[in-house]
């Protein structure tokens, strides 16, 4: 019974995460980070490693939740822990760490989550490309695009912010920016 209650609570937290509820995020984050930190420290990682690792796991959780396809049948803690272990394993294998693979890590690899990980890697790849492309965009394009597509400002607001005489001008500027972004992104993405 207790187990089920816990899962119910976790499900609600996850719903909150899907709705971009900051409090749900904060709860999940603060409740689960310490155990990951301990794990990483135990395997001779640093606090920064733990932070990166945990945030990556959180992103996976978040993006899965956003897609609405995530059915939680284990506790959030279990899920995050398994994902972190998996990620840590990968890091040890491919990263600059030349450590031998701890056997314990091998044993507890989440068998369920091969798909999740592959998907995540692809998304991560896309994210890096986009991040790089946006980084190369230069101003004002970067901010305009971010304002419109990410921060969801209206063209009117953007026009005012950037001192365009009307939103049509701003839009034209946005189109130009978008054109460049598209070109750069797909150049990168396809290579």
């Amino acid at each position, binding site marked *: 019974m207790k187990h089920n209650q816990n899962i119910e609570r976790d499900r609600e937290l996850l719903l909150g995460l899907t709705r971009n509820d*900051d409090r749900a*995020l*904060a709860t999940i*984050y*603060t409740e689960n*980070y*310490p155990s990951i*930190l*301990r794990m990483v*420290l*135990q395997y*001779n990682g640093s*606090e920064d490693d733990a*932070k990166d690792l945990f*945030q990556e796991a*959180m*992103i996976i959780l*978040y*993006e899965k939740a*956003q897609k609405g396809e995530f059915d939680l049948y284990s506790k959030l803690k279990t899920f995050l822990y398994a994902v972190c272990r998996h990620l840590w394993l990968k890091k040890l294998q491919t990263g600059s760490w030349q450590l031998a693979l701890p056997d314990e890590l091998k044993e507890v690899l989440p068998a369920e989550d091969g798909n999740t990980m592959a998907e995540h890697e692809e*998304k991560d790849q*896309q*994210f890096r490309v*986009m*991040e790089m492309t*946006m980084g190369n965009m230069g101003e004002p394009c970067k901010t305009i*695009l*971010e304002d419109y*597509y*990410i*921060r969801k400002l209206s063209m009117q607001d953007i026009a005012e912010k950037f001192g365009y005489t009307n939103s049509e001008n701003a*839009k*034209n500027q*946005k*189109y*130009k920016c*978008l*054109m460049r*972004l*598209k070109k750069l*992104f*797909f150049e990168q993405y396809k290579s």
Partner: protein
Amino acid sequence: MNDFTLIRDIERYLEGEMNEQERTAFEALRQSNPAVNEQVLMHQQLIQQLDQYGQRVAFQEKMDKIHASMAIDEVLAPSKTATPKKVFTISKRLVTNMAAAACIALVTSLSTIAFMQNANRQNTKAQYEDVRRVLNNIQRSQNALINDINSKKKAPANPGTYGGTGFAISNNGYVVTNYHVIAGADSIYIQNTKGEAFKAASVFEDISSDLAILKITDSTFKGQPLPYTLKPQHALRGEAVFTLGYPRDEIVYGEGYISAQTGFNGDSAAYQVSIPVNPGNSGAPLMDSKGDVVGIVTGKQTTSDGIAFAVKSAHLKRLLEEMPKDKLPKKEWNHKNRLGGLTRVDQVKKLEDFVYMVKVYN
């Protein structure tokens, strides 16, 4: 249609800014022109990517904020405890290893101790009576052995043979024993099976064959005619032999056989004998089935069981011949055997009176 207008149209189309007429026209264009269609799909993908990018950046920012706020209370607390925790886990591992090592060391040392004690006990058991009775003697015997080895003379045996027995070779108080039994002695006493002790003195010593001739000096001693002779011939391999000695306070009988014609390290003046021999047996007579003396037990090999050594009686005989005549008249030790036809029990009964315990004091 240039890229700009295309992208504007796509954007307007996707954002739903087109009116009915425009959209129909654009959809028609999409259908007729695959390149345009592809651009639309790519654009959709791009927007989606951008959206996800934005979400992730936002999410990351939120998390960083949470992380930073945690840093004040929680991250610091875990990091404070976690860093020692790291050390702690390592030391825990160490402790496990050390515990394992300690266990192994403990087991090893305990088993070694047990083994050593066991070995010791066996030793002390064997020497128990002897040690109590002639402790000094044993020490002296050992010294004698060391001296022997150092001087590279024919060693009687490995350490492990200690003196204590002698037997009469004449009816007027001459007794033969091992040199190492009486070496360096201040005073020597001979004790018979009846418990009578007589003072004795060494009159002749042959270190190389580890033999010593003692003369009982006590006036109370009364000699008897010897029932046995010193056999001048070599005993043969396989010949049954027996011995009488004093590994304890009481005279002890033991029997065996001649194993080899040479003694320790190929010593041709001795036999290898398979016979139970214990400290205190040194100097005991080795008799053949007729009761004639074929050898004098000197020692045994400590490294293996059932290997004892005895100086050949022929050697003793030669020694006696070499002795100054005034000390030991020849006729005194040339006797007739009177044990030949007797049973072993009777032989032993008779022999007992001529086998003595040699006690050495210094």
